[in-house]
């Protein structure tokens, strides 16, 4: 039976009515209009739907809404915008680190969390950590450059 859930997304409180098993991805995209996170596979195998839960990347396509109550949910939209971009967003623009951009939301939130957690990171580490985020256009090396540039800035500070 549908239920009402209170969610905290990008620092804003929301209430949604849906089945408890509804994946977070559909609540974000259809009930709240936050469409940056994308459906890719529905099985947690590609990373296109990644969002941050208390700062850690999760696959929103197989995360039921009941399990995210009382957590801080961050989507790409909450990371920054054109007026106030997150450093990872600026770095993706500087490196032109995408082609179709369908994997970009998942890439950026996952990479932002990664650099937050481990600013002192190597090229090989980035590749290992992003192995679960698939890209078909072949911009991997641009993404690695973008992530390393943000890491270098944050360790320099």
């Amino acid at each position, binding site marked *: 039976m549908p239920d009402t859930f209170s969610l905290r997304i990008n620092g804003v409180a929301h209430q949604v009515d849906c089945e408890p098993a509804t*994946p977070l991805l*559909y609540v974000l995209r259809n009930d709240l209009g936050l*469409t940056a996170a*994308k459906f*890719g596979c*529905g099985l947690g195998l590609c990373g*296109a739907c990644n969002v941050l839960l208390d700062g850690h990347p999760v696959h929103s396509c197989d995360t039921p809404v009941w399990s995210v109550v009382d957590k801080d949910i961050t989507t790409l939209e909450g990371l920054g915008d054109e007026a106030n971009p997150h450093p990872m967003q600026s770095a993706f623009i500087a490196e032109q680190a995408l*082609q*179709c951009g369908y994997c970009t939301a998942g890439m950026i939130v996952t990479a932002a969390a990664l650099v937050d957690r481990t600013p002192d990171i190597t090229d090989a580490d980035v590749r290992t950590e992003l192995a679960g985020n698939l890209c078909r256009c072949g*911009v991997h090396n641009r993404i690695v450059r973008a992530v390393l540039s943000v890491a270098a800035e944050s360790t320099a500070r």
Partner: protein
Amino acid sequence: MADLSPSLTANPHPDMWISPVAGLIHVRTGKVELGQGVLTALAQIVADGLRVRIERVRMIAASTDGSPDEGYTAGSLSIQHSGAALRAVAAAWHAGLMGAAGLAFGVDAPRVEDGTVTAPDGRTMTYWDLPPAAVPTVGTALPAASGVVGTSVGRLDIPGRVFGTRRYIQDLRLPGQLFGRVVRPPSRGARLLNVDETRVRAVPGVVEVVRDGDFIGLVAEREDVAMQAVDLLAAGCTWKQEPSLPDQHELADYLRTAPAERTVLVDQGRSADVRPSVVASFSRPYLAHASIGTACAIAEWQAGRLRVWSHSQGVYQLRAELARWFDVEPSRVTVTHVEGAGCYGHNGADDAAGDAALLAAAVPGRPVHLVWSRQDELGWAPFGPAMAVTVRVTVDDAGLPVHWAQEIWSNGHSGRPSSAGNPPLLAAIHQAGDADSIPSTEPPLNRGGGSARNAVPGYRVPNLQVVSNRLATMPLRTSALRSLGAHLNVYAIEAVMDQLAADAGVDPVAYRLDLLDDPRGRAVIEAAASAANWGSRSSSSEEAGRGFGYARYKNSSAYCAVVADVEVTSRVVVTRLTLAVDVGLTVNPDGVRNQIEGGAIQALSWTTTEQVRFDAHDVTSRTWEGYPIVAFPDVPPIETVIVDRPDLPSLGAGEASLGPTAAAIGNAVRDALGAQIHDLPLTAENLMRSL
């Protein structure tokens, strides 16, 4: 003087392409953004020709309600065709403004700055107050580039994608929109015997169940409800199934022996020798598009009119197909392009539009938004055809080829809607219960060919024969996948070239240069060899290998040469790729690099890893675990050298690097193992088979 672009011949009116509107320049092109960055490159061409800042340029999404009809966005022709058209139209507008301002202000050759001419007395004239009659007929005289073309302008669409504000078709939500899902048959050719709809119709929020022949789907108020309900619907279906697919493990043999239409495409010089010096056979499996997003469409029927939003590569062609299928006048159908996930050829976009249109017919007045599951995307979208190639070469006493024969076996590479004789949309196939679908066709060789694409070696060969065998039946639906037959043909040609070089005791690069007269081809080969330090072995490990690959795409487009470094342990690891490319005048160097490198990584993935798997009934590789693609840890450093030709026409960059990259990797593996690998992908299993 260059010929007019075919796009312009078909759509000659300058105001169809460029309209100055309230301080902005609206640009309509028939070409669509597939993730390749084409709209930015075209905007650069317009800004450059008009002498306006690129910030003023607005690219309008292609739609059948007013865009020029430029056919499909395919074949790496957008810059060649649409770019050339826009360059000529911009030149006409520019000449019109110069002429009118010159006359009004009494000056010779006035200067246009950001769309405005200023007279010595301060009066101004702009594109925005220029009467359309002042714009002359589009001619072929073109002014020199003014500086926007040739620079790495940042892609106009990237900020919107990085901030999550640019809407993909998957994100579009129209007023009153419903959500559709389709149940695909459990195997190829399965017939729907019976459906129990009662449990599905009882689910709150399910609006309609649509059954038409073997097509079955539903429409619901919410997407999550549609997804749950479609599983119930699938469980309520009873199908009649029979095995229909060939043995995947004997695929190359199947291709060579299945009934086929044999065509001699090239027959030049004397016919083949009975005893050629080299005979080598190659194969590749079916390949999936494997975009990160799945196929999607929106359709709405209202008062006998159909509106469709689609990430199709050809809005006019999709319109024609939908009109034919639903038996309505094309003028009653509108198809508008909305960007989807990356497109690498004829994927499920058109099929999804057919699904949405058929479902929407059951709920007139309500738009139906339809998304394919990952399983259907990897299982039901058209595949890049499996192929087999045999090369027979006779050499002279100096070890140079005097006769080259290349024979190819493949299903057709063109299953696009509304091309003459091509298969219908997937929903139409299932609606008609037509298990024996019409097999896909081949584009003619003078338009780049399909399975014979790049089957003609770019090297000096006095006697040449190319034969294609197009399969008369189609076990799995096939259509155009990036570079079409060039992937396996270039792999095969370049593998044989390495063998001939080895037999002659000549360095592979020197051997190629000996047989290549085209100075542009020679320049990219030399550039790649030089950038990679060809000849100097940096690694002495036994597992290491280095290989070369070269081709001019379609024998008429961009030139590309690649050096691959690999290590072969229990599997093939590509450790470095070095590429050189000549795309004529480079419109956007960073955009070209992005396309060339992206193509190289996709080719690496196809060549080392990918294969569609199937049993006697159906495709079994339907998740990312069953159909893996290369991920970050397997992507090597890549260096790309652009050999710029500012005085020569621009050529498309999107597909040039795939064949040469595959070939270079194959030759590097041969170098490491001392044996040619004949069957792709270069998995441990296929390596063992060849050894």
